[in-house]
């Protein structure tokens, strides 16, 4: 399966933080034929292991991480009439809720919509403010008794928005954050199995990034990698977004630099991009990157880290938009970087002075 097809499959699956099973299953299925083995740890992180080529069990371990979970909602109560009351999981922007098409993951997946009052029943003043979450409900169009048979407090609700195409290679979907990066990891895997490698590689589809980088922290601890590169989406320029630290769609992955990242890894990512002619951009991050790399960097005694960001517009909306070419180039850059890593260089990331 190629990365584009995997991406389309993954964004159509539900995977709200803490309930990523469907996405994890699909990733496991995609990686099992190409990895030496695929494991799942206590919190649900999926780990695909690729040996060095030629094989060397003592080769350094490179961890590549992208997260499977998406932001979403959870049922807090079944109200009279069968309407579902909600709480957020992860950083939901309430702005997107009115009229949103969703899926309620009870005993079956039920289509639903976020209810709104019709315009003639709302005041002009109320229409100028986003709805508070506890005034919002999901309507699955069924009588209360039937809802109670199928749905329970604690069931997850995800956005129903499969992949759509715009001009050229631009596409949109819910959960491009961070399924697009998982697809980039898959792209890297497909490249890497055809190249010599002096490192072992652990491809990790992490869980619960959106609620505190929890899967990254625990998988980083469990794998004890010698170095790691995380892949996550980053803000791209769009109407209203033109900060110095926003990138452009279609210009390739963004190599991040700053306190969260080991300078030698940053240099090696840039060198790999230059030597293989992979278009790329730069970003400068003062402190926390807001990605799995922040958690992995402080696992156990510390892990040298890097980060590639995939330019993305409208993050945390139902219409997250990116360039599929950027996703593929990110995969290519990861593979180029991994193929170039040598054990001596890895040893030099730490220094014994005496």
């Amino acid at each position, binding site marked *: 399966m190629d990365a584009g097809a995997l991406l389309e499959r993954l964004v159509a699956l539900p995977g709200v933080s*803490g309930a990523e099973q469907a996405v994890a299953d699909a990733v496991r299925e995609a990686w099992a034929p190409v990895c030496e083995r695929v494991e799942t740890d*206590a*919190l649900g992180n999926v780990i695909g292991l690729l040996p060095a080529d030629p094989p060397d069990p003592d080769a350094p371990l490179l961890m590549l991480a992208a997260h499977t979970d998406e932001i979403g909602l959870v049922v807090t109560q079944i109200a009279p009439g069968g309407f579902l*009351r909600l709480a*957020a*999981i992860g950083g939901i922007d309430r702005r997107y809720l009115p009229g949103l098409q969703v899926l309620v993951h009870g005993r079956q997946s039920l289509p639903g919509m976020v209810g709104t009052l019709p315009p003639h029943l709302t005041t002009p003043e109320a229409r100028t403010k986003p709805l508070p979450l506890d005034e919002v409900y999901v309507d699955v169009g069924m009588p209360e008794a039937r809802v109670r048979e199928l749905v329970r*407090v604690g069931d997850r609700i995800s956005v129903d928005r499969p992949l759509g195409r715009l001009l050229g290679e631009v596409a949109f979907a819910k959960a491009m954050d961070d399924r697009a990066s998982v697809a980039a990891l898959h792209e890297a895997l497909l490249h890497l199995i055809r190249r010599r490698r002096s490192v072992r590689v652990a491809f990790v589809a992490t869980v619960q990034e959106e609620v505190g980088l*929890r899967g990254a922290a*625990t998988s980083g601890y469990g794998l004890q990698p010698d170095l790691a590169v995380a892949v996550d989406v980053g803000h791209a320029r769009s109407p209203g977004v033109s900060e110095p630290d926003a990138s452009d769609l279609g210009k390739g992955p963004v190599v991040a630099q700053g306190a969260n990242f080991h300078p030698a890894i940053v240099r090696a990512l840039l060198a790999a991009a230059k030597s293989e002619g992979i278009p790329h951009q730069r970003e400068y991050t003062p402190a926390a990157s807001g990605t799995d790399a922040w958690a992995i960097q402080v696992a156990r005694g510390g892990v040298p880290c890097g980060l590639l960001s995939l330019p993305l517009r409208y993050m945390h909306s139902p219409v997250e938009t990116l360039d599929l070419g950027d996703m593929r180039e990110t995969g290519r850059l990861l593979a180029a970087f991994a193929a170039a890593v040598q054990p001596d260089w890895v040893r030099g990331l730490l220094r014994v002075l005496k």
Partner: protein
Amino acid sequence: MKELLARLIEAFGPSGREDAVRAVLGAELQGMGLSAVADPMGNLVAVRPGRAGGARILLAAHMDEIGLIVTHVDANGFARFAAVGGISAQTALGQRVRFADGTVGTIGVERLDDPKDLKLDKLFIDCGGPRAAVRTGEMCVMAGGLQADGGRWIGKAMDDRVGCLVLLEAARALRDSPHEVHFAFTVQEEVGLRGARTAGYTADPELALAIDVTATGDTPKARTMDVALGGGAAVKVRDNSLLAHPYVIDWLRGAAERRGIPHQMEVLEYGGTDAGAIHTVRAGVRSGAVSIPCRYVHTPGEMVDAGDVQACVDLLVEALSAPLP
């Protein structure tokens, strides 16, 4: 149970100063034949050995309660303070407080031009004059012993002395279990789940549960929440520190349904428990929580239902008595 709960509630134990609570719990555990050891942070842990086919399971209830720490005492004995854990100015105003040696006082307030100006730094503790116990760095807690009425129990520090009670009673009632159960009475939960983090690391369990109070949605114009006093043991799905592992939720729900133990599903939109710290320790631990529904959390009038407390004990015993699903 009520008598033990009264002793637990009255024990002085703000975060970092849990000694008195540890003493009560240590004596109870010893009476059950369980030897308990205090670790470097002060967590008290007793281990019930398991057998082949069992798992290592960590159960955590926190000993500490919220309190106040004196930051400055003026010449007349009026003491300025800061919060140890989540105490709001609204809750603190007018409350009676008690220091470790029994010294009592009342929380007063400066003159306010606007009620909206009410903040902790406008308050002070008045023990009637200078007192030996009231010095910079000393802590006090809210006063309020146990009052029981028709199956409803009210007292300060139900959070989480009632959780400690549930854990003790579960240990007492557990006849046969294949599992190696670590009963951990943790410190400093209220200031950041600190004891749980290290207890989790040391125990290195396969599964973990926090036993703590949770809020309810059954009071006038309450925040939407499906948990009610009298509705049974609450099985946690979510709070801000933890997304309970589906395996653990199913395990608990299955045990409750098997035995007909009243239970309810809990989604808390804020807050955290010890399981929040434990589940991200080392390479991760499948975790969840059994919660005791409690109204008015973090006030001296915390209220729980005796039936809910029993249901939590029963649920733990039932879940631990069989091999994991």
